[in-house]
């Protein structure tokens, strides 16, 4: 399963696109991202208390939950996506409580059944790996860890241990959707991470435009865009597929032609 990641990152820099599950017409939105040229999809599992997210994704979580989105709906969206798009890697991103509430084995098994390739859990650092990591690895689902500007060389091996698929570099110490990081600091960090690991490094947080994405794609294996896409779902509601496809095409063009 992890070879979906390998294929996606083998073609050159990859565009990773995030939207929140259950916010707007999720199936149509996911299709628009793939048609626009996204190489990897991150599907956000809504949570009442998204501590690491800025206003854009917080509100997307609330819109989704207010519509009654349940965990079972997220897995249904994932399974249907897998049927429509057999080759595009799919990652679930979210918070510890919804992922562990029925036990980590249950969650890992549901991921495997739905064809989910990887999981990003914002609030399970390596120190608490036992809460989810072993179950995911047992089920053959990649655990994708976050590295941040505060992850120093001493911590990095612990972050890399047991992670696979790709490494997500959070380029700013902060929450999603806020400021962007300086290009120089991104270059330095990516070089440091790549020296320590063989898995691809994708850079996210604060990336909104094709110009930013292009610069990052010159040095990283992937670029993650989230809040800018989620903003389009807020603006266009159930009719966001068109605008999403348009922005994704522009981003994909910039990322794919960067190198």
């Amino acid at each position: 399963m992890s070879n979906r990641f390998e294929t996606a990152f083998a073609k050159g820099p990859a565009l990773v696109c995030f939207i929140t599950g259950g916010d707007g017409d999720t199936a149509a939105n996911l299709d628009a991202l793939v048609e626009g040229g996204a190489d990897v999809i991150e599907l956000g599992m809504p949570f009442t208390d998204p501590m690491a997210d800025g206003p854009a994704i917080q509100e997307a979580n609330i819109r989704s939950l207010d519509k009654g989105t349940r965990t079972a709906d997220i897995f249904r969206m994932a399974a249907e996506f897998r049927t429509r798009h057999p080759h595009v890697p799919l990652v679930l991103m979210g918070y510890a409580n919804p992922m562990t509430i029925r036990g980590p084995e249950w969650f890992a098994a549901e991921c495997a059944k739905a064809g989910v390739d990887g999981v990003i859990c914002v609030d399970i650092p390596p120190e608490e790996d036992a809460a989810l990591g072993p179950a995911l690895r047992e089920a053959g689902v990649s655990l994708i860890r976050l590295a941040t500007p505060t992850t120093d060389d001493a911590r990095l091996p612990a972050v890399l241990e047991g992670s696979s698929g790709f490494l997500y570099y959070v380029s700013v110490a902060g929450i999603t959707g806020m400021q962007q990081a300086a290009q120089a600091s991104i270059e330095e960090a990516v070089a440091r991470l790549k020296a320590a690991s063989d898995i691809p490094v994708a850079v996210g947080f604060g990336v909104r435009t094709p110009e930013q994405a292009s610069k990052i794609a010159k040095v990283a294996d992937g670029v993650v865009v989230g809040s800018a896409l989620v903003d389009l779902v807020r603006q266009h509601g159930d009719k966001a597929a068109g605008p999403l496809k348009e922005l994704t095409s522009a981003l994909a063009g910039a990322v794919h032609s960067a190198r």
Partner: protein
Amino acid sequence: MTVQPPVNSLRSLPDDTGHFGQFGGRYVAETLMPLILDLEKEYRKAQDDPEFWAEFDALMKDFVGRPSPLYYAPRMTEHFRALAPEGKGPKVYFKREELNHTGAHKINNCIGQILLAMRMGKTKIIAETGAGQHGVATATVAARFGLECKIFMGATDVERQKPNVFRMKLLGAEVVPVKSGAMTLKDAMNDALRHWVAHVHDTFYIIGTAAGPHPYPELVRDFQSIIGKEVREQIMEKEGRLPDMLVAAVGGGSNAIGLFHPFLDDPEVAMTGIEAAGLGIESGKHAASLTGGKPGILHGNKTYLLQDEDGQITEAHSISAGLDYPGLGPEHSWLHESGRVRYVPITDDQALEAFQLCCLLEGIIPALESAHALAALPQLTAEMDEDKILVVNVSGRGDKDIFTVAEALGVEL
């Protein structure tokens, strides 16, 4: 100075990884992890540094006004003895935390944490607050030490708690109204964490209760343990023996763990923690995480939480803003499962009745949080023999609550 508890002690947790059995831990974003590890290192150094505790003790004495009295409550004792079956009705003592500077136990913890912040070289302080008690205590210590201070408070609470908002401003703090979620305490904590992630280099987060990621539950407990340590000495002086029952209200659990912890290894001392049952457990509108919740992960720790089957956190309800939170500290979850402490739910109405009774019988206006603890007395005193001793923690004074109480009683001010 810390003295190592004996092997098999109930006072030896958390373990090296910050867990109380399955509870506790460090469930935070990677950005915060290095800082949390730093804080632990700094706290270990402080724990063994006599100078740290000398400064803490000096501030406790002259700035906070400690020790707070242990007061024999004669009319409460007689009142409940008269209602109890023949031979029942213990002596009731109050631990007078409401006499502390700023009117509650919250200041004990704030003093300890700001000393740590300064040792870590942090120049800015943030905190979350519900009713504003912890916000006022934090703003107080920030003013005392000249550090910049931002208090995150749900917009709903800013509206409901205007006097405390003004107090914080007088003390030089900036109050940030939080507009996410239901705009109450849980959301204030989310936004404080969000701010912290973006300002880890110069900012210290003073968490207001014995919850959050390790080492917060441990260090808040240790700072609040001054309550129980004093009670131990004071009751020995007055009665020549340990109490039979300790009672405290549990919001996040800091005043309760502060009272309980020094007695955990004394099997003859029973303990009751009081959870807020709001309009009643069956109504669904309550804040009783142990009685009505189940284990989950939120705000950096694993603990009992109010949540649905999908692990979505549900809103808490209590007339007492300080108890209006859908979780509690991890050590209480562990003490609950181990059976060492019994946790009992008390409704808004029961707390209101106890609030008024305490005013009339003892001349003390208790905080609504503390009134929850007092409301357990009818049941507890009826079960305990006359020659027994019960200590209830009056964690705060009720001046802040008079508007809420007036409204609940239908009185126009």
